[in-house]
């Protein structure tokens, strides 16, 4: 069964922090999503800290992620699906998408 990487992107624009009440709502939404798709979610993934390093050609190390980017990757999950259509359906139900955030869906090449 093909695997897909769901990449959650955050806007780097400043925006109001969610309230504790809203966060508790997101918590239930995530849990609901994991329960709904069960084994289809092969790796629940993790969040990514907003800090990073970018290794540039010539061995120059810069603070990252790319500061000029409008979005940065905030987290990821790995799901299993029979097709892109099914992967998109799973992604549509995830809290990031439900809350109107962009989710990039990429199929694993399966080389390994």
């Amino acid at each position, binding site marked *: 069964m093909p695997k897909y990487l769901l990449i959650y992107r955050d806007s780097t624009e400043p925006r109001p922090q969610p309230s*504790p*009440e809203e*966060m508790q709502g*997101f918590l*239930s939404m995530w*849990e609901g999503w994991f329960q709904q798709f069960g084994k289809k979610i092969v790796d*629940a993934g993790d*969040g990514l800290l907003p800090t990073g390093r970018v290794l540039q050609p010539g061995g120059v190390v810069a603070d990252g992620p790319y500061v000029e980017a409008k979005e940065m990757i905030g987290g990821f999950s790995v799901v299993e699906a029979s097709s892109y259509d099914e992967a998109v359906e799973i992604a549509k139900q995830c809290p990031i998408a439900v809350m109107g955030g962009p989710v990039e869906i990429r199929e694993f090449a399966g080389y390994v």
Partner: protein
Amino acid sequence: MSSASELVEHYFRHEYGRLVALLASRLGVRYLELAEDVVQSALSRALTAWPRSGVPNDPSAWLYRTAKNLALDALRREQLAERVLHGQVAPIDDSTNSPEGVVQFDSEIGDETLRLLFLCCHPAIAPESRVALALKTVGGFSVSEIASGLLTTADNVERRLTRAKEKLREAKAEITELNSAEVVSRMESVLSTVYLIFNEGFFASSGDSPIRDDLCAEAIRLAQMIAGHPICGCPTVYAQVALFLMHSARLNSRLDASGTTILLADQDRSQWNWDLIREAMSWMEKSATGDLLSRYHIEAAIAWEHCRATDFAATDWRRIVQLYGTLLDRFATPMIRLNAAIASSYADGPEAGREQLLAIDAVDRKRLRPWWDCCMAQLHERAGVPAAALSHWRDALALATTSPQRQFVQSQIDRLT
């Protein structure tokens, strides 16, 4: 491990206040903002971790540990910055890092929240800023939630919070053990802050109604917390709890399905929540000790008169007028004078009420708008002068600020034209 659905309602919101209270009292009030930031970050971490690995058995301890470590990291960074800037080392208070800190957590926490509430009611802070600060730090409401609850803008709330925190810094305020002397000196300010929170939720019935209900619920939670505390509990706060519960019991019947205000005379009394009224009664009984008669005692007694009347006509207006008289002797606020005038109009006729309304001066009338105009309109109508009533309803329509108000006033104009 358990599931997020087992967390009690408003768990994050209430946990936010408890954790901010605990950290700010350990780190010092100058780190209040840091405490808020790290608690927000800890909740945010839980958001990623808990759905994936399950909610920990003791979620409060998990959040506390996470927030505390984030705070210590931030303090170490600050210390490093200090050292670079001034070439000196500021001592870090690492006592919070002891494992005992976590063990004591549960027994300590109830008190911490109240201590933070007392800090928010510091005399150096302006009363309207106390409300915002208490909602933000103790209540765990976001700035935008507070803005919609208090019918103001997020910028205004931000300004109040900034000013309040400046005042705390200037006053070098600290969160201290609650002792009898401090409780006595600040209790009045604490109770009026809680009262303002309730009133904001209860009276200005517009905006986002779930938030407004939440303000009422928050005020009740805080009042009950104070009432249950061994040092803070006193007849005055018992009376306040009774008052809030009696008002809450009647919340649902105040608006019709379309969100229009329903007058007390037309409310369906079978919808009143009698469980809450009974609970209120037991608080009222508890409050009937000591020799201090607070405004909450009198207001609760008035609310009880409304609750116990089987229908509007059965209301004991004579008794209510008496109670308003007692209240006015102590707290002659414009709103109480307005309510007293209405009570008089039912006890002694519309003319008596109108005289009292006209006795309210121009400045206070302005503060009462559009309510003053609505009351004048009704009294004219009951006195049989519909033309005068209509003109007051039209004034009221121009002054109405919320949509339930406008809908209500418009319906009265439609009825008369």
